[in-house]
């Protein structure tokens, strides 16, 4: 079957209206997951930045716009997407260009999520075509907007199962003048979580806390990131160091090295080139070490002070069964041919509401069927 490649929102609406069967929606195709049933519908024709106002911290672009294009435009004005979206290509062994729509539909965010929010917190407005071919807009391009229900949040992370995004408006933020990282060597998982929550609970505006039980040299390292103006970063780095008097501390103040270190976490580089399943477990930070111990994982590391556990497990291992009931959820990010659901099954009333909402927007069940529900 040839893929559909609408060149406008109207063409997309027509394509969905006249679809006879399931559609598999593809942005850049960098996150191939699930069964990928049906005819491929590509968003690459809906591309381009339509508005960028640096003084208002807003950018509006087509859903098929390559993320790289947006990042380059922002870079020229010394701004950025603060939610630090992950690049999945290395982990999943895919090629292609991540798109704005893909990032929005999957609510992709990185280490800075713990300080400033996820993609959903930066999405100001969306336009999309639902499963019946209706064109819908919600939100807008201003930072404060409570006019009607917030369908923007609902579209963020709906993985294309509610509608196909055509346009997204985002809040952007200034790039910091510099960044630095405080590194603590040799902590066990529990002590690392304590150190990270301590740092996040300080007034020093930490923008990332991660722990690698096996750092590059094979020994544990805990990373605490701060960003901002030069003097301020220098000051906060020392204040933070002061919180950990009897620890083996190192300070990384070269912004490029800091950026590289955090890309390593953001893109789950410890698991690149490995075999097995990769899971992302979102939980309460202080619960993380005990949960991680239950996983029988080949390897784990922690982001978000422990609130995000990245786990590499033998293919097909059902970690949800091992975890039992806990505060959070586990998402299978890289599935090696298993039949486990990618998204965490939800309790009955919530599952019913979600299914009800999804059926309203896609009554025929043709948009990425089976991706979010078993």
């Amino acid at each position, binding site marked *: 079957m040839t893929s559909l490649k609408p060149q406008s929102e109207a063409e997309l609406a027509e394509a969905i209206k006249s679809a006879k069967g399931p559609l598999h929606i593809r942005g850049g195709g960098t996150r191939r997951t699930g069964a990928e049933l049906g005819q491929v519908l590509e968003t690459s024709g809906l591309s381009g930045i339509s508005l960028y106002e640096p*003084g*208002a*911290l807003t950018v509006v672009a087509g859903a098929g716009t390559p993320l790289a294009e947006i990042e380059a435009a922002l870079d020229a*004005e010394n701004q950025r997407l603060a939610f630090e979206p992950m690049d999945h290509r290395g982990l999943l062994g895919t090629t292609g260009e991540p798109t704005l729509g893909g990032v929005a539909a999957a609510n992709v965010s990185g280490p800075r*999520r*713990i300080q400033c*929010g996820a993609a*959903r*917190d930066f999405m100001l407005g969306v336009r999309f075509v639902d499963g019946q071919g209706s*064109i*819908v*807009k*919600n939100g*807008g*391009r*201003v*930072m*404060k*907007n*409570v*006019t*009607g*229900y*917030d*369908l*923007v*949040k*609902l579209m963020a*992370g*709906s993985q294309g199962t509610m509608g196909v995004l055509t346009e997204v408006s985002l809040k952007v*933020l*200034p790039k*910091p*003048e510099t960044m630095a990282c405080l590194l603590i060597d040799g902590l066990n998982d529990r002590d690392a979580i304590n150190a990270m*929550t301590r740092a*996040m*609970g300080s*007034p020093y*505006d930490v923008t990332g806390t991660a722990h690698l039980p096996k750092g590059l040299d094979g020994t544990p390292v805990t990373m605490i990131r701060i960003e901002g*103006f030069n*003097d*301020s970063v220098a000051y*906060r780095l020392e204040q933070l160091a002061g919180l950990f008097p009897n620890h083996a501390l190192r300070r990384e103040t070269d912004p490029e090295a800091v950026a590289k270190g955090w890309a390593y976490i953001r893109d789950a580089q410890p698991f690149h080139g490995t075999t097995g399943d990769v899971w992302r477990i979102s*939980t*309460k930070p*202080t619960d993380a070490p005990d949960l991680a111990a239950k996983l029988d994982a080949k390897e784990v590391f922690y982001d978000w002070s422990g*609130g995000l556990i990245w786990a590499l497990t033998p293919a097909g291992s059902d970690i949800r069964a091992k975890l039992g009931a806990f*505060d*959070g959820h586990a998402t299978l990010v890289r599935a090696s041919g298993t039949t486990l659901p990618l998204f*965490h099954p939800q*309790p009955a*009333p*919530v599952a019913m*509401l*979600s299914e009800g*909402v*999804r059926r*309203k*927007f896609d009554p025929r069940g043709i948009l990425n069927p089976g991706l*979010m529900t078993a």
Partner: protein
Amino acid sequence: MEMPVPNAGLLARKPNIVARLSAVLPPDALISDPAETRAYECDALTAYRCPPLAVALPSTTEEVSAVLKICHEEGVPVVPRGSGTSLAGGAMPTADSLILGVSRMNDVLETDYENRIIRVQTGRTNLSVTGAVEENDFFYAPDPSSQLACAIAGNIAMNSGGAHCLKYGVTTNNLMGVTMVLMDGTIVELGGAHLDAAGLDLLGVICGSEGQLGVVTEATLRILHKPEGARPVLIAYDSNEVAGECVSDIIKAGVLPVAIEFMDRPCIEACEAFAKAGYPMCEALLIVEVEGSPAEINEQLALIKDIAQRHNPVELREARDADEAGRIWLGRKSAFGAMGQINDYMCLDGTIPVSSLPYVLRRIGEMSKEYGLGVANVFHAGDGNMHPLILFNANKEGDLELCEAFGADILRLCVEVGGCLTGEHGVGIEKRDLMVDQYAPEDLEAQMAIKDVFDAQWLLNPAKVFPLAASETRRNMAIAAE
């Protein structure tokens, strides 16, 4: 303001309904005497009033569930209520509705500094959430000006903002989980102490749904450590355009102040007359506040002052100590009170793209002449949220209607320049009929479809948010089914 005709069948069955509800509530938790229900006839949009059928004041989630179950069976519309400070009429009853107030549910259930969360019952006031963690130097960031009175319940329903949301975001960015009761009495948990949704982000839709999807009884909120300090600077300009450019330049320079407040001349004059804060008389006043350690504050303020100077301010005043900082904020904080001393006023709440500020202020000035009503502007300049205050005389025949028409025109102007009808107060009944100016029928249909799923009979706060004509079929279905 048009409201649906009350359901005569329900009014007739009042004794029955009251008896059933009393049976599941503590003795003093159901109010049905008309003399007492009067206290709940309106919220802070006081121009519109209507006493409810009865008022239920449960103390637990289970009681809320029991009450809703009965109302579901009896077909009684339910209007959830926090503290009743809504400026949009969100908590205004209809004669056939039950007010379900959560004001007795104000416990702190859990504070957890390591994971930076607090779990509260939603009747707790916004300020007392911060109050509960203050001794450890933590705070809850969203800070609506009504924070002394308003409840977390209302904050969640309206997705309320505050003066500091440029840095910390609004309610939705600080809300991690809720316990909520659906109209049929089902109790659901969404989110928790972890980040992001397992599946669809239902929590994201609940926040800002104006009490139409469920009754929120408990909430998990993000708490943060207080910054080391904060300091404002006051910058005065002789034109709105220049002040607007200054704001844009500050943001472009990479400084992210916690607040950028803007006041125009009528507002400055009123504040001066009332609070005597010592503001310079000028066309546009900016208050810019930054946070951090003393050195960090100096670093940021130096940059801001530098940018401000380039635009030739009439005056640039820095706070040297807490006292001076207090004086800079004094006028702004008393702005609403000041206007209230002079006049009756209506407070609007549209948002515009920051870049269209000068144009919008000019147009508002022109419209003010056309309508013959004065207007003063207070404005969260960093995020484009405007609060024009239209002055009118409540005792003068037709003045309220004139004021409302003027207000509607200003909000339409906000939409026309790419903004929206409401930035933080919500739609309620006040902006219900303007929704068609911002949204196409398909857009409203998509929103109403969500309500169909959560509340198929349209019993929760039914006459709000959507134009009555748009929701009519759905609301009538509920009555027909009864």
